[in-house]
């Protein structure tokens, strides 16, 4: 059912909410009766009968299975396939006057929404965002005007509720044009708070937001939950680079192959590990306190400090040239890696613009490549002259 736009894909831009025939190749599911979400999903607790058919019911109470799924997704396990079947769900015992809340079909988004609505009755309309959260999907347009209009029709919502209002998460706004939704479907979009946890206060106040509800922050907790997925992403390059450094360290140097690897290779692997931890753990945690606005600047500076500490602990012999050169190489390599990882964190942050990221990358990417490659060459040289 979800594949019906498979041949009319025009990227993510919505030109106009044209919901009429898409002509030719697409088997249009428009004629079909209401699309009801699958009943065999584990979090469904029953069903509720409506004029549009039996609608699956969910509870605000998350089960251990749901919490485990969140942990897994945070660590990147099954994250790209962590989905809820799109369509309309009943939370509690909603009637035709109950509010309709719209969300993405990323299971974590769905869970965080219903978790905040305990002892309330509401309809939850889940858009097909291919398992991506609201904000990212809105940025790509899959949480978008067209999908929302289509989902309103497909769910039979018009026959279920007597009102014509929807509550969308504010962060869905980059993808949804409220005035076009109104024109095409008759439903007026209300943008609720940024965070689901503010929903009870929003609903109780007669759908009024406070200024704080409208502002996206990037708190320590928000940054900390991103660390696992960043770590997982860094593991693969580490597993490729670590053996290479290890073997390179054995070649050249004063002693035999295995002695060299113990003397220099282990440290090289440790240095790489330090750079990664600094880039994907320390940088996110210390983000507001690190110098500079560009993420790469924050990365270069923190990487340099961490490299100094590491070299101090290693107690390199700086009286001899091989030691000096080796120290220099790590003072280049570690900051370069950290800066690169820090730069990549822009995508996970909540306040970087693409114009800014491009401006940063124009100097930072060449700088990272130059210092990293330069450091590596110097390090190899230090092995050869040792």
């Amino acid at each position, binding site marked *: 059912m979800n594949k019906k736009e498979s041949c009319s894909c025009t*990227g993510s831009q919505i030109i106009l909410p044209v919901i009429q025939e898409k002509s030719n190749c697409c088997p249009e599911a428009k004629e079909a009766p209401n699309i009801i979400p699958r009943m065999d999903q584990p979090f469904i607790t029953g069903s509720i009968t409506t004029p549009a058919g039996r609608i699956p019911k969910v509870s605000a109470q998350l089960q251990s299975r749901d919490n485990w799924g969140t942990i897994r997704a945070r660590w990147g396990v099954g994250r790209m396939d962590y989905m809820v079947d799109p369509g309309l769900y009943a939370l509690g015992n909603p009637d035709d006057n109950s509010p309709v809340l719209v969300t993405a079909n990323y299971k974590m988004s769905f869970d965080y929404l219903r978790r905040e609505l305990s002892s309330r009755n509401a309809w939850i309309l889940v858009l097909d965002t291919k398992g991506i959260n609201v904000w*990212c999907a*809105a*940025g790509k*347009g899959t949480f978008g005007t067209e999908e929302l209009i289509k989902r309103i029709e497909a769910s039979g919502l018009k026959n279920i509720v007597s009102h014509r209002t929807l509550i969308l998460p504010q962060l869905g706004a980059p993808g949804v044009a409220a005035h076009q939704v109104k024109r095409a479907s008759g439903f007026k979009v209300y943008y609720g708070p*940024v965070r689901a946890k503010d929903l009870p206060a929003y609903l109780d106040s007669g759908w009024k937001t406070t200024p704080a509800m409208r502002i996206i922050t990037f708190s320590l907790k928000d940054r900390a939950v991103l660390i696992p997925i960043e770590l997982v992403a860094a593991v693969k390059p580490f597993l490729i680079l670590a053996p290479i450094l290890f073997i390179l360290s054995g070649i050249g140097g004063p002693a035999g192959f295995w002695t060299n690897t113990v003397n220099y290779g282990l440290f090289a692997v440790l240095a790489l590990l330090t750079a990664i931890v600094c880039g994907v753990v320390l940088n996110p945690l210390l983000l*507001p306190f690190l110098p500079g606005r560009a993420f790469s600047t924050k990365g270069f500076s923190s990487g340099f400090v961490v490299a100094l500490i590491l070299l101090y602990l290693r107690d390199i012999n700086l009286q001899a040239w091989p030691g000096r050169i080796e120290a220099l190489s790590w003072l280049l390599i570690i900051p370069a890696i950290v800066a690169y990882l820090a730069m990549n964190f822009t995508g996970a*942050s909540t306040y970087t613009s*693409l*114009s800014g990221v491009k401006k940063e990358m124009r100097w930072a990417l060449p700088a990272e490549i130059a210092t990293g490659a330069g450091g590596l060459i110097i390090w190899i040289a230090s092995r050869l002259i040792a």
Partner: protein
Amino acid sequence: MGNLIYLKNVVTLQLDENKCNGCGTCLEVCPHAVFKMNSSHAVIQNRDACMECGACSRNCPFGAISVEANVGCAAAVINSLLGREGGACSCSIEPGNNGNAGKGGCCC
């Protein structure tokens, strides 16, 4: 903690105050409080806080706001440069100016 601010003087946000009728939708959807209300229309009060998400321009009924809306993600830019699809963050850059194969398969 105060709001974090990224690089200065880079964003592409433009507001045409002549087209604006002061409905205030942009104030509502902006997650960084970039706009404020004048007597009769919206004005940009904190342009460096803008992250170019495009919520304001998409929801402006009068087409008074323009911004090159996109996701500020270095990984996506790199993937786009390399002609790869998707990325570690599962985001993807929109066709935009360098509309090559870099755009992710968002819906196909």
